[in-house]
């Protein structure tokens, strides 16, 4: 999966990733006050969450969650 993990030990619960994920992949766990990865296969590896995370708690792999056909 592209988005592999959010390290909840590092995560401060600022909410930026869940708020701004453009593919609607990261959601907010109200009870825990932390984000969680709800639709990892839809992550497009855009890296916004990893680049925006103030404590570097997010790791994104460049591998696609769902293979796309190639031109040849």
């Amino acid at each position, binding site marked *: 999966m592209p988005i592999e993990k959010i390290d909840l030990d590092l995560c401060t619960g600022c909410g930026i990733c869940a708020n*701004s994920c453009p593919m*609607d992949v990261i959601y907010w766990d109200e009870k825990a006050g932390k984000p969680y990865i709800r639709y990892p296969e*839809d992550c497009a*590896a*855009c890296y*916004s969450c990893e680049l925006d995370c103030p404590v570097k708690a997010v790791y994104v792999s460049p591998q696609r969650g769902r293979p796309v*056909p190639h*031109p040849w």
Partner: protein
Amino acid sequence: MDGLVETDVLVIGGGLAGCFTAVGARSSGADVVLVDKNYVGRTGCSVYAAGMALFNPDWGDDIEAWLEQYSRVGEYVVDRSWARILLENSYDRHRDLVDWGVTFYRKDGSRGSLDPGEEPDRPFWLKSRYRHMCTLTMFGGHDKMVHARGAVLDSGCTILDRVMITDLIVEDGMIAGAVGFHVRTGEFVAIQAKATVLASGMVSFKGAGFGRHMGTGDGQAMAYRAGAEMKSMEWGGLMYCIKDCDSVIVDGPTWDTGESKDNVTNALGERFLGDEGNPGTVTLVLWPQEVHAGRGPIYHEPYGVDREAYKEEIIDYESKAEGPWITMLDRAGLDIFNDRLEQITAYVGARPGGGVKIDAGCATSLPGLYAAGDASGCGLGGAAYPAGGTGMNKAAVTGHIAGVNAAEYAGKSGAVNIDDAVIERYRDSVFGPLRRRSGFSTDHVTKRVQQTLFPYEVHMVMHEERLNAALTMVGFFRDHLLPRMRAVDLHDLRKAHEARNMVQTAEMILRSSTVRKESRGTFYREDYPDRDDENWLRWVLFKEEEGEMRLWTEPVPEDSHGDRSMPYDERYPLKYRRE
């Protein structure tokens, strides 16, 4: 009604074009609602765009030379009057970005906000190739969009994040707002507006490449369904990426200087790109031709530059632009500096420049509807992507113009008062896929579109028979899959509407392509393998009429034709490959 909103100007899409539209409309006195299916500031391609073409004669820029360059690279079907509008207004929009506090690359090598009138630095490759033609400002794509969101809020606009707009409200042939739903709460949203602006980005298909998975042609499909005239959607968009890490766009150290040919080889080890006389992505059209001739696959040769030295030059801005691609390649275990890697062209759909037809004021053919940015078909670029920074230039300038004119239109219009019963009729189309208990998954429909469009022989090396075969399949998706598509939750409902829009825009691209019976720029037809200046200095347009797509052509104005007396080989330095 769950969420009924009324406003003067509704802006759909919160990339740079949408933000400029919202601020422009608000500054003209209109109440503005800006809506996005994601989060304004982290949506669309703008987040990854790190440069804006900018014309300022005080800095030695030459607009005529730059327009010639657009015209030549775009192979003489560029809308030159639009290109001029975009460049002439670019400095004012640059000043807006400066006012918003965007961080630029400064001449002393530092990064920071610019003082008013301060000349920003130019990227190193512009200094060598395009000196004295035009400035290209550089900024961090992410940083720029944070400031754009701030400017929208500061101006007093209302932002609705996570609202997926699914259809325009059509009333007596006029556009009176739009309907959709909140992706996280499931609330039905209906926005009545005196003027509506589509700033919803490009047509793409969630394929290989980077940063384009949000652009699923939502605005183009909605406008088409509402009866708007559409323009220039046959031109395909190509990027290049590494096969074993296909989420990366490799924007290498040699690409924009035109020296990329040294890094591209075929299966025989031949450097098959000559001096095409054209920079950038237009030469990507030659890769599938090489494969088609049996000389594939295509390789990326080691850069042969010192990684650390290279880092000094470019990694910094790339990390905020086309993604942190060196990091991504590292994580995939690929070494682009020292290893030979297989690479592919990434099909990213209709090339920006095509879309909803607009006039010089960004008005579409439908009263009350405007379009800006990649959603609009203003004909910039013609048959190829003209140069770096033109996308942001177009987003900023068309956004501002659309915003100001939409506000003026709204000011002259009476209150919009759509009957509740009319609004309710849209509810079924918004939530339909969620109510089905069985049917085709949204992933299935998306994959079928990708499997049909992505093979190189469909829209990179075209032939009438194969275009028609693809159209047969897309017609089947439209008639059989879409009415039976099922969404399992709200997240999936968003994907269902995106899939519907992708099926419809795929048909637009393919049908427009059957009409253009010639080759030009990145548009290559095996059955018509030459430019045909006699018959095809024309644009392809279409609209829906009684359930059918009606297509026609219009001539490109003569000021865009270039020097017709020039010999073909000189006029068209890009040489298509034959077997």
